[in-house]
C-alpha cells in the first residue's frame, strides 16, 4: 500500500495461498501477492527484494515498515523452509514487465539472479498494468493461523477503507474486503530528522552523505525545523565551533553532539507533515465497513511529539452491530495503518483501556463495545523487536487516554439517549396497557354501560408500519393532534444495514412547519422526540439515505392530553 498512496492510486491487493503438498511434519504453500502500486524499477528489483537493509536513506516519513525488512524476510523464510526461489514480476507502467527468479545469498547478503525475463506490457499509456507480483513458497500451517490471518486482513481493511483486498485461502474460499471510499489520506512528506530524535548511528549516516562543510550548514541542512538562527544558538550553547567540518568529527565528539542535541531545549517542535493519519472520515468509514456498528465516534488528536518524534493518535469507539459482545471492551490496535494482532495484554493500549472506569460511560460488561487505537509516527515506540506491542511513552499514553475519553463521552451520550428512548417507549406502553383498564373498571364501578374512550387522554397511532423507503421523501398518514398538549414521535429504523433520513412536520393554520429537521437514522437506531407547540396535525416523512438502498422503518405518533 505504501507503493500506491504516494502516487494517488487506489490500492488493489490480491493475495492467494495454495497448498502445494504436505507430509507428516510440514505443509508447504505457494503465496502469491499482487498489488497495483507504482512498481519497482527493473534495475532495483533484485536488491529491493534480495538484500537486507537496501535502503540508505536517513530522511523520515511515516511508513508501514521501518527498515523494509518485511518483504525480504518473508522471501528468506520461504527459501529456508522450501529452498525454492522467489518469482517477481513488476512494471512501473512502461511497456515492459520484468520478471526475476531470485534467491538470497545469505552469507554475503546478495541476491542471486537465477533467471530474468522481459515481457511486453500490453495496452497503452494509462491503461497499462503497473504494480508488483511476488510469488514464493513457504512452510506453515494455515489451519492454525487462519483465524489470525483473517483477523489481520479484516483489521487491515478497517484502517485502509480505500483499498480492495482479495484473499483466496488454500481451500479456495474467497474473501473480499471492498473499498467503500475512493479518497486516500494525504501522503506523508519526507522530512529531515528532528535533533531530539537522532541517535549516533543516524548522525554518522548523515555525516557520510552530507555536503555541508561546516557545522552551521550541517545543522541547517540536515535537521528538521533548524534554521540559521537556531543552528547558531545551538552550537553556541553546545560549545561547538561553527566552522568545524562535520566530516572531521571524532567518534567521541559525535556522541557528545548527540547528547547536546537531545538536551538543548531551543529547537522548535517537529511538525506533522511527515505523518499521514487516516483522518476522522476515513477511520469512520473503515469501522462502519468492517464492524457495521450501530454507533461510532472517532477522534483525531492534534500532532504531538515524544523524544523528538512526531506522532498523531486516532481513536474510534464502536458500539453494537457486528461488534462482538465480550466480557470487557474489545481493543483493536494499529500502528501506521498496520494492525497489531499479537500479545495484546502486553501493550500499553491494553493497560490504558483497562484502566478506564467504563461504567462512568454507561458501558457495562458484555456490551458490544470496541475501541480502536491508531498511532501514527515516524517512529512507533515498539516494546520488542517483534513490533507487536507498544511501550509506555508518557506523551503518547496521555494522548491515547484523552482521545479515548473524548469518544467514550460521545458513546455515553448515545447510550443514555438510547436508554431514554427505551424508557419513554415503555412509558407509553404503560399508558396503552392500563388506561383502557382504568376506564373499564371505572365504568363497572359507576354502573356505566360503555367504558369512556381513553383517546382524549392518550392515543397512539402507527403512521408507518414496516414501510419501505424510497429515494424521495414519502409522507406518512397524518396524526390528528388537536386534542393533545404533548405529542411524541418515535421512529425506528428496522433495516439490517441501510440508513434512512426522516423529518417531522407539523400543521399550524394552513402552514406545515418542520418540527424535526432532516436527520439520519442508522440501521437499528431509533429516535424519540417530544414535540413542543400546538399543531393540528403531525406527519413523518422518510426516504432512503442512499439512492437505491431501501430502508425499512416503523413510526408512531403518540398524543397525551396533559
Amino acid at each position, binding site marked *: 500500500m505504501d507503493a500506491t498512496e504516494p502516487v494517488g492510486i487506489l490500492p488493489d491487493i490480491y493475495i492467494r495461498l495454495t497448498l502445494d503438498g504436505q507430509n507428516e511434519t510440514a505443509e508447504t504453500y505457494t503465496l502469491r501477492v499482487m498489488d497495483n502500486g507504482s512498481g519497482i524499477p527493473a534495475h532495483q528489483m533484485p536488491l529491493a527484494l534480495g538484500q537486507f537493509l537496501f535502503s540508505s536513506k536517513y530522511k523520515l516519513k511515516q511508513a508501514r515498515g521501518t527498515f523494509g525488512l518485511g518483504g525480504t524476510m518473508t522471501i528468506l523464510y520461504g527459501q529456508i523452509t522450501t529452498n525454492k526461489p522467489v518469482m517477481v514480476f513488476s512494471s512501473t507502467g512502461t511497456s515492459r514487465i520484468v520478471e526475476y527468479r531470485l534467491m538470497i545469498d545469505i552469507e554475503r547478503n546478495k541476491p542471486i539472479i537465477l533467471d530474468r525475463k522481459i515481457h511486453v506490457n500490453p495496452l497503452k499509456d494509462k491503461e497499462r498494468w503497473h504494480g508488483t507480483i511476488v510469488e514464493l513458497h513457504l512452510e506453515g500451517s494455515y489451519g492454525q493461523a487462519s483465524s489470525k490471518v483473517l483477523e489481520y486482513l479484516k483489521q487491515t481493511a478497517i484502517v485502509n477503507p480505500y483499498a480492495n483486498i482479495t484473499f483466496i485461502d488454500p481451500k479456495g474460499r474467497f474473501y473480499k474486503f471492498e473499498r467503500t471510499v475512493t479518497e486516500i489520506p494525504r501522503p506523508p512528506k519526507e522530512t529531515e530528522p528532528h535533533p531530539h530524535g537522532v541517535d549516533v548511528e543516524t548522525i554518522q549516516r548523515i555525516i557520510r552523505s552530507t555536503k555541508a562543510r561546516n557545522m552551521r550548514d550541517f545543522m541547517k541542512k540536515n535537521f528538521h525545523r533548524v534554521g540559521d538562527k537556531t543552528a547558531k544558538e545551538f552550537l553556541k550553547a553546545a560549545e561547538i565551533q561553527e566552522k568545524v567540518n562535520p566530516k572531521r568529527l571524532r567518534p567521541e565528539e559525535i556522541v557528545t553532539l548527540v547528547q547536546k542535541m537531545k538536551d538543548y531545549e531551543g529547537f522548535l517542535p517537529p511538525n506533522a507533515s511527515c505523518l499521514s493519519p487516516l483522518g476522522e472520515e476515513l477511520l469512520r468509514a473503515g469501522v462502519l465497513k468492517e464492524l457495521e456498528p450501530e454507533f461510532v465516534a472517532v477522534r483525531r488528536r492534534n500532532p504531538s511529539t515524544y523524544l523528538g518524534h512526531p506522532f498523531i493518535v486516532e481513536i474510534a469507539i464502536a458500539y453494537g452491530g457486528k461488534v462482538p459482545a465480550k466480557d470487557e471492551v474489545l481493543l483493536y490496535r494499529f500502528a501506521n495503518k498496520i494492525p497489531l494482532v499479537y500479545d495484546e495484554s502486553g501493550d500499553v493500549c491494553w493497560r490504558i483501556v483497562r484502566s478506564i472506569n467504563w461504567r462512568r460511560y454507561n458501558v457495562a460488561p458484555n456490551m458490544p463495545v470496541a475501541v480502536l487505537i491508531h498511532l501514527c509516527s515516524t517512529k512507533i515506540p515498539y516494546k520488542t523487536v517483534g513490533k507487536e506491542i507498544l511501550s509506555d511513552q508518557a506523551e503518547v499514553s496521555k494522548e491515547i487516554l484523552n482521545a479515548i475519553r473524548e469518544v467514550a463521552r460521545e458513546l455515553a451520550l448515545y447510550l443514555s439517549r438510547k436508554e431514554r428512548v427505551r424508557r419513554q417507549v415503555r412509558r407509553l406502553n404503560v399508558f396503552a396497557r392500563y388506561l383502557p383498564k382504568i376506564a373499564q*373498571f371505572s*365504568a363497572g364501578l359507576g354502573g356505566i354501560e360503555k367504558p369512556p374512550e381513553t383517546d382524549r387522554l392518550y392515543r397512539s397511532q402507527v403512521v408507518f408500519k414496516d414501510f419501505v423507503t424510497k429515494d424521495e421523501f414519502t409522507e406518512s398518514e397524518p396524526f390528528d393532534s388537536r386534542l393533545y398538549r404533548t405529542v411524541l414521535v418515535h421512529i425506528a429504523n428496522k433495516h439490517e444495514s441501510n440508513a434512512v433520513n426522516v423529518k417531522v412536520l407539523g400543521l399550524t393554520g394552513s402552514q406545515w412547519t418542520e418540527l424535526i429537521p432532516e436527520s439520519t437514522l442508522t440501521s437499528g437506531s431509533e429516535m424519540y422526540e417530544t414535540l413542543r407547540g400546538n399543531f393540528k396535525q403531525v406527519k413523518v416523512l422518510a426516504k432512503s439515505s442512499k439512492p437505491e438502498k431501501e430502508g425499512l422503518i416503523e413510526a408512531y405518533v403518540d398524543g397525551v392530553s396533559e
Partner: protein
Amino acid sequence: MSKEDVKKSVVEKKGIVQKDLEMLGTKFCKEIGQGVFPWVEMKSRSTDNIFYSPEFRQYVLGDKTVRRSARVISHLRPFAQMVWTAYFAHELLQQRKTSTLRDVYYSAQAYDVAFQDQAESDNIITDLESVVESPRESFNVYPEERSAVFGDLTIQYTVPGYENRRTNLASHPDGMMIGPALTESQFVETSADKVIVIEKGAMFTRFVEERVHEKFNSILIYTAGQAPRSTRYFIRRLNQELGLSTYIFSDADPWGMHIAMVIISGSANAAHLRELTTPDAKWAGVWATDIVNYKLPSEQLNEIDVKRLKELKDDPRYTGGLWQREIDAFVELRKKCELEAFSRYGLTHIVDKYLPERLKELG
C-alpha cells in the same frame, strides 16, 4: 352515640361504602371523557404523617395528603390496580359475598392487573381503605386469621341465606369463629356484663370448661395472638353497642402487653382508620408484678425483649401509670411468663384465685 344509632350505622355502613365506590367510578369516567387523567387524593400514610392523638387515644393521620394520578407513569399500574380493587370490592358488596386478602391477590390475575405479590395487593387494599376512609371489612375483604367468641350473646345474621336467623354464641363449646357472618351480625341480647379477651387458645378452652362465662357473667374472646382487625372491631362493638367492660389477658412479656395495647389503642398501620379500638378496655394481666406476687414460673427476658421494652417505654400509647409501672417492673425483674404458667398451681388456679382477684382489683 345511642345504641340505636350504632346498630343503624353497622347496617348502613356497607351501603355508604358501596355508594362511595360508585361515586369514585363515576368521577373517573367523567374525567376520562373530558380528557383529564383520573386522580384520587388520600391522606399520606408515611411515618412523618402519623401522630398519636390523646383525644382519640389512638394513632391518627396528619393533614398531609397524597395525590394518585393516572397521568404519572409510576402511579398508573397501582392506580389501575386500585380501580380494579374498588370494582372488585363493589362486586363483593353488591353480591353480598366476602373475600380474603389472599383471595383478592389471586382474583386480580383473572383481570390482567396481576399483583407481583400479596404485599403489593395488601398495600393497594390499604390505599382503598384510605380513599373511602373505611376498613376493608366494610367492603367485605376479611383477614385469613380467625379468632373465636363464646358466651351468652344472641345475634341475628344479616348475611345472605341466614337473614333474620338467630343464634346464641354459647351454643358451641369450642366457641364461634369471628368471621364475616358474625362481624356483620346484629346483637340482640346478652346477660353478660363484661368481655374477657384471652390471647391463648388453651386458656380460652380452660375458661369455657371452668364456666367463666357463667361465673363471671362474661363473653369470652380468643384472639389467637395479635387480634385480627375484624376481632378488634367485634370487641369494640361489644363495648360500644352493649356497654360491656372489657378485660384483656395476655402473656407477661412486651409482646403480650402489646397485644392488649393494639386492642385498646390500635396500631400505627391502621392510623387511617377509626372504630377499630376499644379505648376503655383494660389490660388485666399477666403483669410483670404478678410474676412476683403469684410466684409464677418464669423465663429470662432476652435481648430482643429488652429492646422492645425500651421502645414501648417511649411509645405515646404507653403513658398510663399501669403501663409505665409494668414496663419498669419487667426491666427490673428481667423475667417473663406465659398465661399457662398458672397451671403450676393446678388447672383451676387461674380461674379460682387469679381471675376473681384481678377483676375485683380493676373494679
